[in-house]
């Protein structure tokens, strides 16, 4: 586990008057899975959504500090940085599967078409590998023109992952991607994350601590808008350094 892919340095975030994140320092290791855990409202999703400037969609949000994206070290939350440019480099998958009301093919092609300047054949060449990476190809290869809304929940979520992968993102953000899925579909997504982690840097928010231990290399524990503890997953779960982390992990709150 070598280089850093991204790094939060003194990241603050405000919704209007309310400060949701306080001076977060968090390294994101390259080609590894970083899990963000903590009770509801602790800021883990808020942190994730800073990484692709999703907060810009809503009025009254304000960033402070830095989230650097390597290798070029651009500050994602910088005022002079174009959020659209950043979002093109970073993929995101949401809690509830949210495929577009389009065909399976068009869903995967969406990001490529947004970038523009690609020939039809180039787009077609990218759709199949993306669906294969998301372990969905075999299930949908004969019905690519069908509506994505006809797929099951687990298939829809894998389609959303394929959609995010199609543009070759440098960083993949997963915001509780299995919270709306049944256990079997959840297992499928976890398997997929394990298969992807050698190739892409993943940050995942999860409510499920077993899930964090199963799939992540690094874990960050958030509480009340602060990063309490960060470390290798095995270490953090077996021997947490902070009392708050231990209390949360042993189920005393949250």
């Amino acid at each position, binding site marked *: 586990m070598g280089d850093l892919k991204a790094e939060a340095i003194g990241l603050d975030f405000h919704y209007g008057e309310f400060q949701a994140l306080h001076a977060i320092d968090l390294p994101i290791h390259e080609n590894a899975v970083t899990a963000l855990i903590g009770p509801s409202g602790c800021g883990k999703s808020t942190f994730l959504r800073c990484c*692709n400037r*999703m907060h810009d*969609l809503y009025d009254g949000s304000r960033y402070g500090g830095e989230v650097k994206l390597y290798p070029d070290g651009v500050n994602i939350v910088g005022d002079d940085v174009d959020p*659209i*440019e950043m*979002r*093109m480099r*970073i*993929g*995101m998958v*949401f809690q*509830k599967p*949210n*495929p*577009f*009301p*389009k065909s399976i093919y068009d869903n995967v092609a*969406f*990001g490529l078409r*947004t*970038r523009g300047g690609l020939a039809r054949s180039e787009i077609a060449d990218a759709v199949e590998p993306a669906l294969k990476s998301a372990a969905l190809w075999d299930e949908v290869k004969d019905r690519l023109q069908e509506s994505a*809304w006809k797929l099951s929940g687990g298939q829809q979520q894998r389609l*959303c992952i394929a*959609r*995010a992968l199609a*543009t070759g993102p440098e960083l993949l953000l997963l915001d509780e991607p299995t919270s709306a899925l049944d256990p079997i579909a959840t297992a499928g997504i976890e398997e997929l994350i394990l298969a992807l982690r050698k190739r892409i840097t993943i940050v995942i928010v999860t409510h499920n601590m077993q899930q964090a231990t199963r799939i992540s290399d690094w874990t960050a524990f958030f509480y009340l808008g602060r990063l309490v503890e960060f470390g290798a997953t095995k270490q953090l779960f077996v021997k947490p350094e902070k009392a708050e982390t231990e209390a949360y992990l042993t189920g005393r709150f949250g």
Partner: protein
Amino acid sequence: MVAEAPVVTHGSPSGGGPRGRGLSRPGARLRWWSERVIEAGLLLAALSSIGITIAILYVLVSESVAFFRVVSIVDFLTDTMWMPLFDDARFGILPLLAGTLLSSGVGLAVAVPIGLTSALYLSEFAAPRTREIIKPFLEMLAGVPTVVYGYFALLFVTPLLQRWLFPDLPGFNILSPGLVIGIMIIPYVSSVSEDAMRAVPMELREAAFAMGATRVEVAVRVVLPAALSGVAAAFALGMSRAVGETMVVAIAAGQQPNLTLDPREPAATITAYIVQVALGDLPHGSIGYLSIFAAGLTLMLMTLVFNVAAWLLRRRFREAY
């Protein structure tokens, strides 16, 4: 109908009915009956619209049957002349149908692009404050009396068209009332489409934004397709309004049945004919009098076709967010 009302007994919160003594408090029996009476009243109100529709259809159909005893249905549908008040009367609906479709067509050509664009703007771009200011103005367009629109078409739009676009345009024509009908139905098209667009869940927009889409791309490539069924309903509503519009065409289109596809010519619509004849003093039961029921039935069937088409479209693109 009242006799049927007590059949509806579901959802009684007291649960027991008049014999449910186990739970009864003083007054429980009275409460049960008053609930029944209120429920029956509500049902009656709901049934009244069905009853009225059936009554209207009954009148239209029965009078039309009398009409079609004299005029063959083939002549009605194929004859190219509508001259019901002449000695040598001719009853071809085609000229009126052409006038109706032409004025509605012009109206939709105005209302659909403008209504849809303003809906997209209000739903996806406007700041809440801007929206609060624009929306009442848009809705005010629907509140202007149609007779005012009629004179607006005749005395303002037609001269304007004559001066700038078509110097030879006759004083009565289809184009000018068509344009004004378009303005009139903009609020219908835009508010129904806007509701459909605002109902598109935020998660879909976020998904598109997260892929680096711009606001325009999100609006056009995600929100609009997701709201398609509501937009189709908006078109159907606009079409029904345009087809049924009477005053504007009666005032500004000339009231001369004219089989044409050129909106610059004067023409009459089905509605304009009905109002013209209904205001005259035709003897009850004469063929001219009966003809307005046949024309009315045609109009009703037309709107029915549009509504069914919209319903099919809605089903075809049913959203399940």
